């Protein structure tokens, strides 16, 4: 995931190659992504090469000369390489070896009661009202609360995290320079906050949470430094908060507008794991990442010169008709679904199993409590596709359960 921006000739920030197509539609971006996936050697008007076809993407990411950074540009307001997103090769593998075991399906399954409880507590606040704006009342706070619990931080710090992730994912500013400056300022505040937390935690007895684990774990026989732990937490905060929030908003918006499919899921919640995978393919809430090419390479006959920065479009690969029959259709019974909604290659999403669990349980609980709902008549769902795709305004109306 990256929130870097480029400026178009008009000066407006341009986020993604698909935004420049006539077929672009904020509500339904899938057609534009299919157009890119089927284009020959797509590139942006500024010359940046774009990888969009499903097969090319897999082979490109597998190439050892394809790297996460050039060692100068880091993701998401980071002043140092984010661990592990901005690292490559053996260094990257060492940290993934430390972090991957914390986020396996078995590990995250322990969080199920906490996820259900927090979801229900948030729904309690609006269940009797008959209407709600789900971004503010559920999708935004849920992953952030859960993440704070996971790290072992006080729930009263929720606003600090909500403000930070908003500033980094959707940076404010009229120009790219202003946006980058605001993003870095927010990043600096988060570094300071995490440094303060660590100092406090080192003075306390060890606790059984992620920070407690980082303080006692060893990598090649050595404890992690404060800087390493801060850099890991920074990445987890930014990767763990907005992505699940955005995904949940996209999925709940989709169910609001597809009552037949919603009733099918209400009648049989057992199919939710499959449903979540298909909707992650279709919505692709994290649409793209960037990679750097360190030497001249050729992938399926296409040249990528040394030093080029490449836009890798997970959302386009997920809408490629050569990989997915009828990609514009949501099909819960898709026989196999090799989607890259959680990215692919060595930097594939570290927290995907936690994200899946949160999405599945939040949707299951929401549909159990509120099986019938619709976008509030006269109002509308508002999507953003800048940075991450999300239903940033999701007003819904529903019958209030009696008794």
């Amino acid at each position, binding site marked *: 995931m990256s929130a870097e921006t480029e400026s178009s000739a008009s000066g407006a920030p341009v986020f993604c190659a698909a935004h420049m197509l006539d077929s672009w539609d904020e509500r339904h971006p899938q057609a534009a992504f299919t157009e890119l996936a089927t284009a020959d050697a797509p590139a942006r008007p500024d010359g940046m090469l774009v990888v969009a076809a499903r097969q090319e993407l897999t082979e490109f990411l*597998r190439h050892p000369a394809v790297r996460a950074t050039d060692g100068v540009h880091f993701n998401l307001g980071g002043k140092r390489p984010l661990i592990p997103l901005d690292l490559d090769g053996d260094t990257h593998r060492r940290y993934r070896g430390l972090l991957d*075991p914390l986020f*396996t399906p078995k590990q995250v399954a322990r969080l199920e009661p906490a996820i259900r409880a927090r979801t229900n507590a948030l729904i309690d606040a609006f269940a009797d009202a008959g209407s709600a704006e789900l971004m503010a009342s559920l999708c935004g706070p849920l992953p952030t609360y859960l993440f704070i619990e996971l790290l072992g931080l006080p729930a009263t710090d929720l606003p600090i995290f909500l403000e930070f992730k908003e500033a980094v994912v959707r940076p404010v500013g009229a120009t790219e320079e202003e946006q980058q400056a605001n993003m870095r300022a927010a990043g600096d505040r988060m570094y300071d906050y995490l440094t303060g937390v660590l100092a406090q935690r080192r003075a306390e007895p060890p606790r059984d949470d992620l920070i407690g684990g980082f303080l006692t774990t060893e990598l090649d026989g050595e404890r992690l430094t404060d800087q390493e732990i801060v850099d890991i937490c920074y990445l987890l905060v930014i990767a763990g908060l907005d992505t699940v929030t955005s995904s949940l908003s996209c999925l709940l918006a989709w169910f609001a507008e597809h009552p037949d499919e919603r009733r099918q899921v209400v009648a049989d919640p057992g199919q939710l794991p499959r449903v979540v995978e298909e909707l992650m393919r279709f919505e692709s809430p994290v649409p793209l990442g960037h990679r750097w090419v360190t030497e001249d390479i050729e992938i399926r006959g296409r040249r990528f010169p040394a030093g080029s920065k490449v836009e890798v479009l997970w959302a386009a690969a997920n809408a490629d008709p050569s990989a997915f029959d009828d990609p514009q259709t949501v099909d819960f019974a898709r026989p*196999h*679904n090799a989607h890259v909604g959680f990215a692919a*290659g060595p930097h594939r999403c570290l927290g995907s*199993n936690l994200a899946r669990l949160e999405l599945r349980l939040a949707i299951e609980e929401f549909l159990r409590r509120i099986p019938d709902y619709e976008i509030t008549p006269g109002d509308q769902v508002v999507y953003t596709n800048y940075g991450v795709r999300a239903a940033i305004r999701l007003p819904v109306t529903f019958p209030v359960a009696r008794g």
Partner: protein
Amino acid sequence: MRVTVDQSRCQGHALCAMHAPDLFDLNDEGHSFVIADPVPAGLGDAAYTAEAGCPEEAITVEPPLAHAGQARS
């Protein structure tokens, strides 16, 4: 029928273990490994589905589907 996971390609998407839990499990790092080799009778379709559904093309089934189809026909 044999099924293998190329550990140098597996990135832990975990889709194989989700869709074919009788054939694949995940190790402590969340990477897939085969738990039923050779593939037991009745799980052939699941093996080919897992192969086609792996985002990293890390799963290989022998014989390949085309040959198996010819063998069946």
